C-alpha cells in the first residue's frame, strides 16, 4: 500500500522520539489554543477591527426563482455614508468548489435561484447605513416558476435552474454495477425492499460567517475569513478577481464551528475582497444568522430505495441503492455528494454484488453541500435500519448478524475501496458488552427500547478537489538557536484540535512539550498548502507530514549532538527537553543546546514534510475516486430510548458508543470529537430540519425557509444531551501518524439509525424518516392500533430515467477496478491553429 518510491508515503506509525514510551501522544493535555479561547483573546473574523474599516451588506433575492431585468442602485448611492454598490455586472467570472460545477458568481448576474441568493452589495461607513441602503436598491425581477423538490424538478425540465447539468433540472446522475445484483437477488433466500427519507439539515455553527478584506500597503489583497478551506478559496479568488494567487493572502481565522458549512468559497468573501481593492480600505462583512441559513451548503435531503438480498444466515447476496438527492440552487460539493451517497455502503458488511444509482436535482432552495459525514449519514441510516428489519425477519440478533457479515481488515470492497485496519468486530462486541444489550434487546418493558447501529467513515478523501499530483498537506518547521520551534501549515483549526495534534506530533518527535511550539496555521502566505479541514483528513495527512518534517529536523540535531559527544548518532535520544546518549544518559545537553549544535553543523534549520495519499490503483473507473481514503474508521452505538405511547414523546435515556480510531492522540480532544459527533447525530435524529414552505397566495407563493432562526431550527440544548459512555477501540493503523485515524465524523453516523431501531424496540413502530419526531411516532402508533402498517415513512420513489450503468466487476469476479463498458478516456483532440510563421 505504501509507495516506496515516494518517501512522503512512508508509514508513520512507528516514528517516535526513539524512547520506548510516548510522552506526549496519547496523554490528556490542555490543548495549545485553549488559553486563548477561555480568555476571549482568540481573534475570530468578526473580532477584527482595522483603521478606516467600512462595512458591507448583501442584498438578497426575496424570490426563489427569477431573472433580474434591471438593478437601479442610484438611490442607495446617494444615501450619506454609502461608498460603493456592486452588482453581478462587477463579477462576471464563475467559480465553484468543484471544477465540474463552477456555477456561481459572487453576485447574481441575471438569474436568482433561491430566496437569499445575493444580487447586490453595499459598502458603507456604518453597518446600519449599509443595511438601510439595501432597501434603496431597486431590482426589477421577472418571476420564474419555482421548483421545490426533486420530484418537481424531474417533472419540470423548464425553466432550467442552470443551463448545465445532465438535462432539464437534473444536475447529475450516476449509475454503477459492481457485479450482477439481479443474479444476487435471485440467489437470495429473502429480498428486502425499503424506502427511507432523510430530511435536510444545516450546520448551525455558533459563529456566523464573517470576513475582513484589506488592500495592503504593497497593494495586494489580504482576506481574513472564517473558512475551513483557505487553499480552495485562494484559488477561487485568483480566478474571479483575475489576480495572481501569489498576490492574494488568505488567512483562515480560528473558525467558530464549521462542520462543512464553511468549506465553499463564498459570495461575501469575494465581494469584500473586490470592495477592499476598489476602495483602498478594509471592508468587513458578518452574515446575520438568517443569511447563514441561506448560505447553507448543508445535508442533502435524500429519498432512498434499498433492496437487499440475504441468505437465511444473514449473508448478503446483493444490495441495490437508488437515491434521489435534493441539491438546492447550486452545485457546491453536490457531484461529490452524489457519489458519496452510495460509495461507503460496502465498507461495513461484505456485499458481493452492489448496484448504486444516484440522481441529484436542482431546486430553488439554498444549495446543499457537505455536512459532517458528507452524503454518507443518509444511506447509512437506511442501511442500518434495513439490517435491523432483516435481523428481525431472520430471527437473528442485530449485533450477531452484523458480526457474521462484517468486513475484514485490508479487504477490497466491491467498489474497490481499500480498507485498512478494521475494528468493527471489536466495536460491536464491546458496545454490546457495556450497554447490556443482551439483557435489554426485545426485553425491556413497553415504551422502553434499545437500538444498535454501526458505521464506517473515511480518514481523508483520497482525491483532491482539483486534479493534481502534488501533496495534500505540507508542513514547514523552523528551529532556532533560542530553542523555539515554529510550525507553519496550511491546515485550519475549526475546533477539532488540529493545531494541538500537529504540535503534539512535533513535540513527541523532538522530545519537547507542546507548550514549546508555536503553530501558525491556515495562512496561505506563511504555510505550505493543506487542502482544508474536510473529510477528516487533517490528523492523518498533515500529521504524517509533520512527522516527516520533525524527523528531518531531529536528524540534524542528533548529528550535531553525536558529533559533540563523539558517539554514534544512533545512540542519541531526544526526550524531556534534552538530547542524551542512551548508553550513558547523564551525558546530555538541553534541547536548546542541541538546536545550536545542529545549527552550527548544518546552518539554519528549516525542514519540510509533505503527505500525498497512496495512488489508489484499484479504483480506476470513472467516479471511483470518491470514497477512497488512506484508511477507514468504524463505530458502533447502542441508544436506549423511552417513548411515551400517549404522546409519541421520545427521550434518549443513554448512549453507549465505541469508535475504532486507531489511536487517540489527545484523549480529551478525541473524546470531545466523538461526543460532539454523537450530539450532532442526535440533533439530526430528533429535531433538526431545513424545511421550506410556500408563502400564501396573497404574498407571493414564494418558497421560503420555514424557520431561518436558531430558536425555531431546533438543536439540542444542555437539557437534551443524555449520558454518553464512550470507549475508544485503539489498534494503531500504520497509515496514520502514531497509528491515528479519524474521530470527528465517524461517530455521528450510527446514532441516527440506532435511535430509529430503539424506537422500534420500544413501541413497535418503524420511523423510516429523519428526523424521528413525536408526531411521526404518534401517527405510526395510531396506524398500528388501527391495524395498518406500523410505520411512518416514504411510500413512493419517483420514476427516474437512470443512465446506462458503468459495469465494474468486483475483485472476486476477476475485476481490476476498470469498467468493462467505459469508453477509454482520450485526451481532448488537438485543434490545429493557424501557423504562427507563414511560409
Amino acid at each position, binding site marked *: 500500500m505504501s509507495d516506496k518510491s515516494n518517501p512522503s508515503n512512508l508509514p508513520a506509525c512507528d516514528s517516535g522520539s526513539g524512547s520506548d514510551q510516548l510522552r506526549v501522544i496519547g496523554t490528556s493535555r*490542555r490543548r495549545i*489554543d*485553549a*488559553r*486563548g*479561547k*477561555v*480568555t*476571549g*483573546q*482568540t*481573534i*475570530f473574523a*468578526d*473580532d477584527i*477591527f482595522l483603521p478606516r474599516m467600512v462595512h458591507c451588506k448583501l442584498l438578497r433575492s426575496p424570490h426563489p426563482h427569477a431573472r433580474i431585468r434591471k438593478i437601479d442602485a442610484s438611490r442607495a448611492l446617494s*444615501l*450619506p*455614508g*454609502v*461608498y*460603493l454598490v456592486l452588482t453581478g455586472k462587477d463579477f462576471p467570472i464563475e467559480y465553484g468548489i468543484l471544477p465540474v460545477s463552477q456555477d456561481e458568481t459572487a453576485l447574481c448576474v441575471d438569474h436568482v435561484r433561491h430566496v437569499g441568493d445575493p444580487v447586490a452589495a453595499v459598502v*458603507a*461607513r*456604518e453597518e*446600519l*447605513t449599509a443595511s438601510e441602503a439595501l432597501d434603496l436598491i431597486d431590482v426589477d425581477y421577472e418571476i420564474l416558476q419555482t421548483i421545490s423538490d426533486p420530484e418537481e424538478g424531474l417533472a419540470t425540465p423548464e425553466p432550467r435552474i442552470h443551463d448545465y447539468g445532465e438535462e432539464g433540472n437534473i444536475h447529475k446522475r450516476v449509475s454503477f454495477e459492481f457485479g450482477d445484483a439481479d443474479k444476487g437477488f435471485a440467489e437470495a433466500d429473502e429480498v428486502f425492499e425499503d424506502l427511507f427519507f432523510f430530511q435536510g439539515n444545516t*450546520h448551525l*455553527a*455558533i*459563529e*456566523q460567517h464573517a470576513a475582513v478584506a484589506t488592500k495592503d500597503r504593497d497593494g495586494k489583497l489580504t482576506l481574513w475569513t472564517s473558512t475551513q478551506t483557505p487553499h480552495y478559496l485562494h484559488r477561487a479568488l485568483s480566478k474571479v478577481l483575475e489576480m495572481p494567487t501569489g498576490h492574494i493572502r488568505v488567512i483562515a481565522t*480560528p*473558525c*467558530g*464551528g*464549521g*462542520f462543512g458549512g464553511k468549506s465553499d468559497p463564498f459570495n461575501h468573501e469575494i465581494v469584500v475582497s473586490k470592495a477592499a481593492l476598489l476602495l483602498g480600505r478594509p471592508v468587513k462583512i458578518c452574515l*446575520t*444568522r438568517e443569511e447563514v441559513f441561506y448560505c447553507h451548503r448543508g445535508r442533502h435531503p435524500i429519498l432512498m430505495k434499498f433492496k437487499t438480498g440475504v441468505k437465511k444466515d444473514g449473508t448478503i447476496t446483493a444490495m441495490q441503492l437508488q437515491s434521489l438527492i435534493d441539491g438546492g440552487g447550486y452545485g457546491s460539493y453536490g457531484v461529490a455528494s452524489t457519489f458519496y451517497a452510495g460509495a461507503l455502503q460496502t465498507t461495513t458488511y461484505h456485499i458481493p454484488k452492489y448496484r448504486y444509482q444516484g440522481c441529484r436535482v436542482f431546486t430553488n432552495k439554498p444549495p446543499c453541500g457537505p455536512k459532517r459525514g458528507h452524503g454518507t449519514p443518509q444511506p447509512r441510516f437506511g442501511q442500518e435500519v434495513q439490517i435491523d428489519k432483516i435481523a428481525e425477519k431472520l430471527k437473528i440478533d442485530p449485533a450477531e448478524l452484523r458480526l457474521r457479515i462484517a468486513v475484514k481488515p485490508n479487504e477490497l470492497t466491491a467498489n474497490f475501496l481499500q480498507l485498512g485496519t478494521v475494528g468493527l468486530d471489536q466495536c460491536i462486541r464491546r458496545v454490546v458488552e457495556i450497554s447490556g444489550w443482551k439483557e435489554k434487546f426485545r426485553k425491556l418493558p413497553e415504551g422502553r427500547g434499545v437500538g444498535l447501529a454501526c458505521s464506517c467513515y473515511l480518514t481523508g478523501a483520497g482525491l483532491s478537489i482539483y486534479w493534481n499530483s502534488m501533496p495534500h498537506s505540507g508542513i514547514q518547521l523552523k528551529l532556532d538557536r533560542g530553542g523555539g520551534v515554529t510550525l507553519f501549515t496550511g491546515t485550519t483549526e475549526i*475546533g477539532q*484540535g488540529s493545531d494541538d495534534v500537529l504540535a503534539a506530533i512535533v513535540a513527541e518527535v523532538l522530545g519537547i512539550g507542546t507548550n514549546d511550539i508555536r503553530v501558525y496555521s491556515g495562512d496561505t502566505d506563511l504555510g505550505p498548502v493543506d487542502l482544508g479541514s474536510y473529510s477528516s483528513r487533517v490528523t492523518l495527512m498533515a500529521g504524517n507530514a509533520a512527522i516527516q518534517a520533525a524527523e528531518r529536523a531531529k536528524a540534524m540535531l542528533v548529528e550535531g549532538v553525536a558529533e559533540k559527544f563523539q558517539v554514534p548518532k544512533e545512540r542519541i535520544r531526544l526526550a524531556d527537553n534534552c538530547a542524551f546518549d542512551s548508553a550513558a544518559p547523564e551525558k546530555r545537553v538541553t534541547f536548546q543546546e542541541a538546536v545550536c549544535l545542529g545549527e552550527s553543523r548544518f546552518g539554519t534549520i528549516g525542514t519540510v514534510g509533505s503527505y500525498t495519499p497512496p495512488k489508489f490503483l484499484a479504483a480506476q473507473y470513472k467516479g471511483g475516486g470518491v470514497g477512497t481514503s488512506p484508511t477507514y474508521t468504524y463505530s458502533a452505538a447502542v441508544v436506549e430510548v423511552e417513548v411515551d405511547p400517549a404522546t409519541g414523546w421520545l427521550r434518549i435515556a443513554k448512549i453507549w458508543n465505541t469508535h475504532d480510531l486507531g489511536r487517540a492522540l489527545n484523549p*480529551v*480532544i478525541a*473524546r*470531545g470529537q466523538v*461526543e*460532539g459527533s*454523537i*450530539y*450532532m447525530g442526535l440533533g439530526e435524529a430528533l429535531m433538526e430540519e431545513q424545511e421550506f414552505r410556500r408563502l400564501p397566495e396573497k404574498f407571493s407563493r414564494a418558497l421560503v425557509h420555514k424557520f431561518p*432562526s*436558531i*430558536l425555531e431550527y431546533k*438543536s439540542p*440544548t*444542555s*437539557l437534551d*444531551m443524555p449520558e*454518553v459512555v464512550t470507549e475508544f477501540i485503539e489498534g494503531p493503523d500504520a497509515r496514520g501518524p502514531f497509528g491515528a485515524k479519524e474521530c470527528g465524523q465517524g461517530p455521528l453516523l450510527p446514532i441516527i439509525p440506532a435511535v430509529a431501531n430503539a424506537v422500534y424496540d420500544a413501541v413497535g413502530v418503524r420511523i423510516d424518516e429523519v428526523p424521528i419526531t413525536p408526531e411521526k411516532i404518534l401517527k405510526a402508533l395510531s396506524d398500528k392500533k388501527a391495524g395498518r402498517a406500523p410505520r411512518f415513512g416514504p411510500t413512493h420513489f419517483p420514476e427516474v430515467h437512470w443512465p446506462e450503468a458503468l459495469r465494474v466487476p468486483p475483485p472476486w469476479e476477476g475485476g481490476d477496478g476498470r469498467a468493462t463498458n467505459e469508453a477509454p478516456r482520450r485526451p481532448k483532440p488537438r485543434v490545429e491553429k493557424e501557423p504562427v510563421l507563414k511560409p
Partner: protein
Amino acid sequence: MTQSKLPAESEKTAHIRITLNREVVDVSFAPYKTLLEVLREDLGHTGTKHGCELGECGACAVILDGKPVLSCLVLAVECDGREVETVEGLGTDGDLHPLQDAFADLGGAQCGYCTPAFLLTAKSLLDQNPSPSRDEIREALSGNLCRCTGYLQIFEAVEAAMIEIAKRNKSAT
C-alpha cells in the same frame, strides 16, 4: 465618491458610565446600539460573541449587576451606572479563574466561540450556588448553545471548577 454629509447615526451619540470588570469607564456610542455592540465595537472587548443577535443562542451572555443576561437584548443606554462583567474580567492578578482552567484542561472549549458565554453563565451559577448538582448545571446552562462539545465535558469542567473553588475558599479561611 465623496460624502459631504455624515450619516444620520453619527450625528447623535449617547454616553454612559459603567463599571466594566471592576473598572469605571466612560463610553460614547450611537444610541441604538446594544450592550453587545458597545462592548465589542466601542470598548474593544471582543471576547463577548454574537451568534444570532436575537437572544436565541446565548453566545452574548455577560453578567449585569450580578445576573447573567443576553447582551444582544440589552440596550447600552440601559446600562448607565451599572456593573458589567465580561470574559476579559475573569481571573485575577494574571491568573485564570478556576472555570477557565477547567474548561481549558477538560475539553470545555473546542472552537471556543461559545466559551466566553458559558464561562460567565457558569460563574454566575457558582456565585449563587457553590455546589450545584449536574441537573442544576444543565438547567443553568440551558440558554447557551454549543455545537461542538455535546455539553458533557462542559458539565465536567464546571464541576471540577466548583471543587477547586471550594478548596481555595477552604484554605483561605
